[in-house]
């Protein structure tokens, strides 16, 4: 069911994935010259509250990583720390050995972008900004420039609505345009913050298989955050499960287990498998020891 080993070119990173189990994930970060992204022991405090309490993870080229957790678990904070937006109070982030990514190295698709429906900007104008929007001056856009824009938009199936005002596209179409805008600069790593939120299941599946084909074809690593792992379960190489600032990193079937998640949540958790889907639930009476009340509520971590 799950692609345990990535496509051929990632064979030499295979060891990394295997090492990154729930119990030994801290070690997996160190001494890995080949990984694209190394996050080592980062703590992040915002307004006196500790949001991330020591996260370690590494991403190999072409790897597809799912950042799973409920609202407030710290998913966006982790992505923005990787992006260099947030300075960790301790710990390090390095992208291809650099502390701050070079322009174009990391593509980012932020969460919940509100595009004004009246914006006189066509979809392809937005993708074009993804390529040269940070530059000063008006700039003459060559035909080669527009070829790149077209290539990125075709890659995500957004070319057919390239000339429509971007603010008037549907949620799924806008998501494709935003992915194209992140993809157009040929990044090594793409970070997507909740790209599946607000999409219906069919559109969500389309976006996931799209991303899966992009990373296979272009060898781009992807970190995608989501509160539900199910649409991603067949595509992910690794899961980073976040709960109240702590994380477990590893392969899906190693992380999404009753034992590992109970330890992460410090609360009995039950993982159920049904029809190729997993359900993570607050544990039932069989697992509850001293706790008489269930602080999660009935189905807190139903994600």
């Amino acid at each position: 069911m799950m692609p345990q080993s990535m496509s051929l070119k990632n064979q030499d990173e295979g060891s990394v994935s295997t090492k990154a189990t729930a119990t030994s994930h801290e070690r997996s970060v160190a001494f890995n010259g080949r990984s694209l992204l190394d996050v080592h022991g980062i703590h992040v405090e915002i307004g006196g509250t500790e949001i991330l309490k020591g996260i370690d993870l590494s991403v190999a080229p072409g790897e597809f990583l799912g950042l799973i957790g409920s609202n407030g678990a710290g998913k966006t904070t982790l992505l923005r720390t990787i992006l260099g937006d947030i300075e960790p109070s301790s710990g390090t982030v390095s992208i291809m050995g650099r502390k701050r990514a070079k322009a174009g190295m990391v593509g980012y698709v932020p969460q919940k972008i509100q595009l004004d429906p009246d914006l006189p900007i066509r979809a392809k104008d937005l993708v074009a900004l993804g390529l040269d929007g940070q530059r000063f001056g008006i700039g003459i856009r060559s035909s080669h420039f527009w070829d790149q824009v077209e290539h990125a938009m075709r890659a995500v199936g957004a070319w057919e609505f390239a000339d429509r005002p971007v603010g008037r596209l549907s949620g799924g179409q806008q998501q494709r345009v935003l992915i194209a805008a992140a993809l157009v600069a040929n990044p090594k790593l793409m970070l997507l913050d909740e790209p599946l939120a607000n999409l219906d299941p069919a559109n969500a599946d389309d976006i996931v298989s799209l991303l899966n084909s992009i990373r296979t074809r272009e060898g781009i690593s992807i970190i995608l955050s989501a509160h539900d792992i199910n649409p991603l379960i067949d595509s992910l190489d690794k899961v980073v499960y976040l709960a109240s600032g702590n994380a477990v990193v590893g392969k899906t079937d190693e992380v999404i287990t009753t034992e590992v998640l109970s330890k992460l949540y410090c609360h009995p958790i039950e993982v159920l498998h049904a029809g190729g889907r997993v359900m993570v639930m607050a544990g039932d009476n069989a697992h509850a020891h001293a706790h008489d009340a269930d602080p999660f509520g009935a189905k807190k971590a139903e994600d």
Partner: protein
Amino acid sequence: MNLLMDLWQVQEMRTALLVGSTVAIATACIGVLTVLRGQSFAGHSLTDLASVGGSAAYLLGINQLWGFLVASVLAGLGMHAIGIERIRGRDVATGIVLATGMGFTSLFITLSMTGKSGGSAAVAVLFGSLFAINPQTVPLICLLAVVSIVAMALIWRPALFVTVSPQLAHANGVRNGLINAVFMCILGIGVALGSISVGAILSTALLIGPASCGLILARRMRDAIITAGVLGFASVWIGVILSYESYHWTGGKSWSVSFCIVALILLMYLVCRVLRSLGLVHGNARRKAVVAHV
């Protein structure tokens, strides 16, 4: 055509048309992005504070343009430092600061009225007159217009990117803070140019009116700017001629040139709104456009 040739012979007409056209084009470029950024409010607040500088300059006997310019650029940077969203949120504090600005304006105007002959101080500062512009100021006005257009062109792509989505721009390496600060300076220059042409109170109309029309009529940024420029240019020319000719129809009490320009802008805006509600243009619902000040 003969009428135009005759008018061109008059020195004041030439100055008025030259300054008006230059300012209309510069403010069109600035205005389109101002409307898109939802900063019509900031533009209007700047005019209140610009009038303090204008009236102080009048009192001190300096060229008013310098007063407008220094005050509105400083006010723009001040707004940027405090945070425009915060300013808008704290409407009581903002209202008091802006009202205090107008209070100072009235003080400076009263002082210049008692000190010098200038009973026209209030009219000059608040409502301006393209016919009363000192020809020696023209080169400075043109220079400022060119500076603002060049600066707009320089920051165009990042500024547009920040307008579309600040997060996305930031993720792509745009320095949002820098771009916003530079834009506020340019907006300050635009407000100063508008103030010297149609007066501090009315300059928002010149900045926002043609730009809103451009955004209603056009589908693309480039077209919106061109449309705004053409409409601004047209309203200035027709307004100037109308004001000049009204002398003959009204028995010597000509309509003020600022009124004519602003009334034309309002008219254009209304026509655009009607066209849109009839579905004849593609229908940009520019909620943020502030032409209420007209």
